[in-house]
């Protein structure tokens, strides 16, 4: 009987400590809060060096996928919960700029970034990284069937590629939307729906997220579709993230990517991710330092292996594996950012009507 009383003790302690506000001491480093999407990652030494150099504690606030994180920043506009927002990409950029959540900052780091990445002339949103969304295919599948691998978007309409492709839903997936934009840039606004109707006739499979496409439907993971919408870098990561058995058994070590990306002109869409200082921050000096840091070679060189995206800073060096195996598209499909801003919703809805209904 007696012991039952103490069952409540941890709860009381728990609730009391929940109510107590964290005490702040004056000598402690200041805190910088960085709001990001869930995919944010960084090496520990890289961020610790920044913290030490600036006597700051960086708090990362992952806030859902890129769209959700942006929505949160917009809704908390009058009462910003972070100093910096990272992760808005060029498909969401117009929403961020229209809602006026960023303050401009012309970071000195911009000097090393090619102009093609700078989509906001006022420097409210600064480019950090890019990734090219392209078709990927499983080499082993095509060689075992003695079938030529696809070389262009048009190839997917051929009868021999019937039922071989899986794509993501542009309404729920960011690579899915990027690929839709690639087809709009490639075929034009008046023809892209015809292309998609053709894909539908050729039994394209649509799933809601990249995970399901890549890890369930793609033949590499035991699915039935050897062509998938992913990134131009995915083949290199297949190589880097291949199994490296440490139990002494002879390893199926790959010396070349087992998959490849279709990088012909105009068949990929370039996603660029941006960072910006949120209006109303009380740590403007630190926020600016953080932006300089994200654009610096140290952070930029850390990104590929942490977040699977590539530096916009032309001074940043890439790991040998990338310089050896990464094949990026020469010319990506061009869609005017303003056109994306104006038509995003209408395009997604038209696509839904044509492909899903």
């Amino acid at each position, binding site marked *: 009987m007696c012991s*039952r009383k103490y069952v409540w003790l*941890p*709860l009381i302690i*728990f609730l009391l400590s*929940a109510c107590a506000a964290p005490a702040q001491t004056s000598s402690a480093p200041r805190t910088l809060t960085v709001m990001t999407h*869930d*995919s944010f*990652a960084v*090496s*520990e*030494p890289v961020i610790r060096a920044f913290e030490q150099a600036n006597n700051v504690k960086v*708090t*990362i*606030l*992952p806030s*859902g*996928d890129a*769209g*959700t994180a942006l*929505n949160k920043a917009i*809704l*908390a506009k009058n*009462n910003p919960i972070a100093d910096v927002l990272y992760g808005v990409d060029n498909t969401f950029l117009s*929403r961020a700029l229209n809602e006026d959540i960023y303050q401009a900052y012309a970071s000195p780091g911009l000097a090393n970034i090619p102009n093609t990445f700078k989509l906001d002339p006022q420097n409210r949103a600064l480019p950090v990284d890019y990734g090219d969304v392209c078709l990927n295919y499983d*080499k082993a599948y095509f*060689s*075992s069937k003695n079938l030529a691998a696809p070389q262009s978007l048009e190839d997917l309409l051929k009868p021999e590629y019937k039922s071989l492709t899986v794509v993501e839903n542009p*309404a*729920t997936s960011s690579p899915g939307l990027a690929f839709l934009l690639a087809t709009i840039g490639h075929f034009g606004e008046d023809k892209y729906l015809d292309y998609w109707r053709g894909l539908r006739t050729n039994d394209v499979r649509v*799933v*809601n997220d*990249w*995970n*399901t496409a*890549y*890890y*369930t439907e793609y033949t*590499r*993971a*035991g699915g*039935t579709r050897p062509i998938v919408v*992913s990134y131009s870098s995915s083949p290199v990561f*297949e190589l880097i*993230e*291949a*199994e*490296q058995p*440490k*139990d002494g058994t*002879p390893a*199926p*070590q*790959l*010396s*070349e990517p087992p998959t490849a990306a279709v990088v012909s002109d105009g068949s990929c869409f370039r996603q660029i991710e941006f960072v910006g200082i949120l209006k109303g921050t009380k740590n403007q000096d630190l926020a600016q330092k953080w932006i300089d840091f994200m654009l610096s070679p140290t952070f930029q060189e850390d990104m590929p*292996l*942490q977040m*699977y995206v590539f530096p916009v800073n032309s001074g940043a060096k890439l790991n040998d594996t990338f310089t050896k195996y990464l094949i990026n598209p020469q010319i990506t499909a061009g869609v005017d950012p303003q056109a994306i801003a104006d038509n995003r*919703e209408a395009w*997604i809805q038209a696509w839904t009507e044509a492909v899903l209904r």
Partner: protein
Amino acid sequence: MTAGNAAGNRAGHNARQIDGPPGDQIAVRRSGRRGSWILLTLWLAPLIFLGAFYFYPLAGILSASFARREGNLLSPFLAALTSTSVRSIFAFTVYQAVLSTLLTLLIGLPGAYLIARYDFPGKALLRALTGVPFVLPTLVVGAAFTALLGPAGWINQALMRLFHLSQPPIDFMYTLAAILLAHIFYNTTIVLRMVGDFWSHLDPRLGQAAEMLGATPMQVLRKVTLPLLAPAVAAAALLVFIFDFTSFGVILVLGGPRFATLEVEIYNQTVSLFNLPLAAVLALIQLFFTLLLTIVYTRLAARVTRPLSLRPQRFTLRRLTTIRQRLLAAAYIGLLVLLLVAPLIALAARSVTRVESSTRLPPGQSDQGITGATAQRGGFTLDYYRELNINRRQSLFFTPPATAIGISLLYASATVLMSLALGIPAAWALARSETSWANRAMDPLLMLPLGTSAVTLGLGFIITLSHPPLNMIGSPWLVPLAHTLVAFPFVVRSLTPALRSIRPRLRQAAAVLGANPLRVFRSIDLPLAGRAVLVAATFAFTISLGEFGATAVLARPEYPTVPVAIYRLLGQPGALNYGQALALSTILMAVAMTSMLVIERMRIADVGEF
């Protein structure tokens, strides 16, 4: 409301005559001045909790959303109500939820009977196994179902080999069937636990008496057992329905883009189209429907509940004696294993199977790409488990599995404590009186958090809990608080039928002998409802262990739970990351199962100790 009880339907009338004098019925509804004070005190903590962490964020996001509307306040409502696509989405949401709930009951009720009435080897294991799906992330379950029923899955492959077919015969993925099966997979445990545990305390002598008087087994079931079980069945069905009604991950991953529930559409409108006023209207429709359903349930539950002589479990359990009984039980357990356990096995098997293909390219092709190819795709490997402990990239947010498990268990324990601390007083208040205005007002409100769009409420947390008076963003307490919001209705629904069924005369006798209300609760209610408390604790525990949506957004990235760590791995390319995600999922299953077996053993106080 007493009218329904006084008149009673035929079955109810029968049951009451068997069970006890009608005096019990009237006494339970008499509450004096002192009674209503006690009720208010009991409701205080749940009210503060819901007010601060549910109504306040919800009001915040709804007002912020409607502030962004064009036109007057009615225009987003009109837009939603006149839209044919909203109407068809609503119809599909209800349709799939009704179907899923009926099927889940169909599968679950025989299991509840088996677990309640019979003792058989492996029963504890079966109970624990059927609870595991509750903790699994939908993406992983999608992978498990694909491994089992996908075009290249085991079943299709076996059928193709067996009947020499050239095409996989079962087209399962991205169909309504996949959605229904996944809902059954997730929710059968609710029926098994809530109904099974209530059933196990029903006095079998009631049915035996009816049989002695010449009733057939069917008649006993229809006229005695089912009416007595009704409160538990209704509570379980309500929870299952609300879960299916607000389904999100299952629809996205297993249903594919052709299917959309309200919750999916709320996400689309919020994130993809940024139409917050419409999203808010849809969230309100979902909420209103949940409220309506809960009100119906509360009225119904009050009508069908009657005080019973609950019996200790050891007096109600039998053994499977005849061959026919054993065969039926074996057939049913086989079905349950096929539906609920096979996907788990498929998942565990995939986590030790090499994903990486090492097929040599045919001659003529560049074959220098692959060297030393001896390990075959599909071969056995423990690499994924080993790799989990290695931080190759010195990543800031790397968390070894042991740490993630520790964090998950910590959050889950906190959730159990908090949801019991809030749920026990609430359930007790509900059980004391059905006519008090406080109860009638509070009861339907308790279910609202379950029927609320997680997308909407998540945004609400951000805009209201990020500044005084409740500045909590980044606080580790937010995670168990959010979990408690989901677990609390489960705790109340598991406890209330049991507490209501306790004969008021026992409480009255204790009170007459001088026991204060707390003493009455400790000496009468708690021992008699001990099993129900365990069931409630198990639900709270598993809900917290498996929760992903809120955790991903509220948890500090340096303290991820196991599901958050799984999703992190699933977001990255390469066989190694995928294998690790499956390995971690398997570890999560093992942790969930062990915990449930431990909780099973912690008998707080079974009726037997009374």
